[in-house]
């Protein structure tokens, strides 16, 4: 299967965006999961709902909201541009941000499930051995919840490969910068007779996802060993 230069670019960009979005979202998602699962504060419930927001509104609306916030005239995007010269709209970074926002609820959910797996008895044991909150988290909770984190990352990566509405609205469809595979696929389906191209690109997407899953499977096996479940 021959890929045109532009298609290659879309493949590279998709990988880039999907990976960056995972990198961007993972740590906040873990923290959010902790806050939501372990925190006891008023408004916890509202925060939980808010986290799910990108899931419940159409992606286009998310992109639109991002534009309001991170655009040059937005309350975050403005200062970001004025003070640091960072622009997100129309850039690969912006595409990654939009993708990260979209997959955020997916990671948080997976991480929370992973967190629920952690036996509180082991954390209690760590406490009696003198491990404080952060120490205990890093040395016991985090390693034990890592299957959930991995699952979240994989789901986010796969979803990132397919993210479309938010990206095209927020970052537009600029070949080489923000035209990821789904945007190219979408473009193809929008023209009469573009089905063949679309199908081929979808095949590439799937291949990437398979590669990601394979990797995750390998990591998961290793992790199982590391977690002593081997």
């Amino acid at each position, binding site marked *: 299967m021959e890929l045109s230069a532009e298609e290659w670019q879309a493949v590279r960009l998709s990988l880039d965006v999907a990976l960056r979005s995972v990198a961007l979202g993972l740590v906040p998602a873990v923290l959010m999961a902790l806050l939501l699962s372990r925190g006891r504060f008023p408004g916890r419930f509202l925060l939980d709902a808010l986290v799910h927001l990108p899931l419940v509104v159409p992606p286009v609306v998310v992109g639109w909201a991002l534009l309001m916030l991170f655009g040059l005239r937005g309350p975050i995007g403005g200062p970001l541009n004025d003070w640091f010269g960072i622009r997100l709209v129309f850039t690969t970074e912006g595409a990654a941000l939009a993708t990260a926002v979209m997959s955020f609820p997916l990671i948080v959910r997976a991480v929370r499930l992973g967190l629920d797996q952690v036996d509180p008895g082991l954390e209690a044991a760590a*406490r009696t*051995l*003198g491990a404080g909150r952060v*120490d205990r988290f890093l040395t016991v909770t985090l390693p034990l919840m890592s299957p959930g984190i991995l699952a979240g990352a994989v789901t986010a990566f796969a979803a990132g490969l397919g993210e479309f509405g938010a990206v095209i609205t927020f970052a537009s469809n600029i070949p080489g910068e923000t035209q990821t595979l789904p945007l190219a696929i979408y473009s193809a389906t929008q023209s009469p007779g573009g089905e063949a191209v679309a199908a081929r690109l979808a095949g590439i997407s799937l291949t990437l996802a398979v590669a990601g899953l394979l990797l995750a499977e390998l990591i998961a096996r290793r992790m199982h060993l590391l977690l*002593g479940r081997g």
Partner: protein
Amino acid sequence: MLEVALRHRYGRDGFALEAAFGVAEAGVTALFGPSGCGKSTILAAVAGLLRPDSGRVVLDGTVLLDTARGIALPPERRRCGVVFQDARLFPHLSVAGNLRYGQKRAPPGATGPGFEEVVALLGLAALLDRRPARLSGGERQRVALGRALLARPRLLLMDEPLAALDAGRRAEVLPFLARLRDAAGLPILYVTHALEEVDALADRLVLLQDGRVLAEGGVEALTARTDLPLAARRDAGTLLSCQVGGTDPGGLTRLDFAGGTLLSTARPEPVGTRLRLRIRARDVAVATEEPHGLSTRNILAAEITAISPGSGPQEVFLQLAIGPSKLLARVTQDSVSRLGLAPGKQVWALLKAVTFDHLGAAR
């Protein structure tokens, strides 16, 4: 040194705990009582893992918990090493990683046995790279023990730590715990239902039943009492403090106690070592005339001071005084009438030299 007073109730009308006891000096305090009497609950509250409805725990002058004053130190700042009933090893760390976990977090100044020493004594050398999932039940418990020790705690809490160990390993680990206790001046709360462990380790006993303290005191005093549930056990008896006095021409070891001398099969301890012997009531016979040609080596003049009912209908406990020391003998009611035993009567107490293999450690 350690002061514990706790009140707790699980749920609205669940199990209720109301227990208080104090420990004046370093050493092992055994919490002893039937299944479900609240032993694990007490340990959890002392370690800080359970917040009791109300209570106070003071260790060496540090208030760990005082619900009245709103103080409750978190477990990680209590420095109470805990050996849990269910080992609770970290599944993602190797045995070595588990052992080092507490060690790394011990305060720099704290002293205690080193890594190598603990590994050797608990027989863990071959297991160091293994994950907990691949250990047998007993191996797991040994690692948990080592992990708690290496954290160099100020107080050690152990929940039936030896229940999963076989007799051989138990016999190996017991003296190690005893040595640890003596060397570190470490108070230990020790949950068990094996009197054997109480004898070997405990200085004090807290007898629990249904969440309440039935009796509390020195092991020797408490085990000599015939009115406690302890007496119903087949291994009821007294503890006798004695000192290694030297070797007999026959190769036996002389153990001097207040009021006389016992002969025991050879002991490895040097002369002068203080030992604690458990003399079990069932092992003591009495004779009204001095016996001859008997394999029994210890035949001591004694006076019956009291006769109290035993655990069965045909049994009684004879309380015997040998000088200032006390012994219990368990004999049949039939023998009492047959031999005319009564308080004040002079008798011979018979103890086989081979029954002392079961020795409490030095204090």
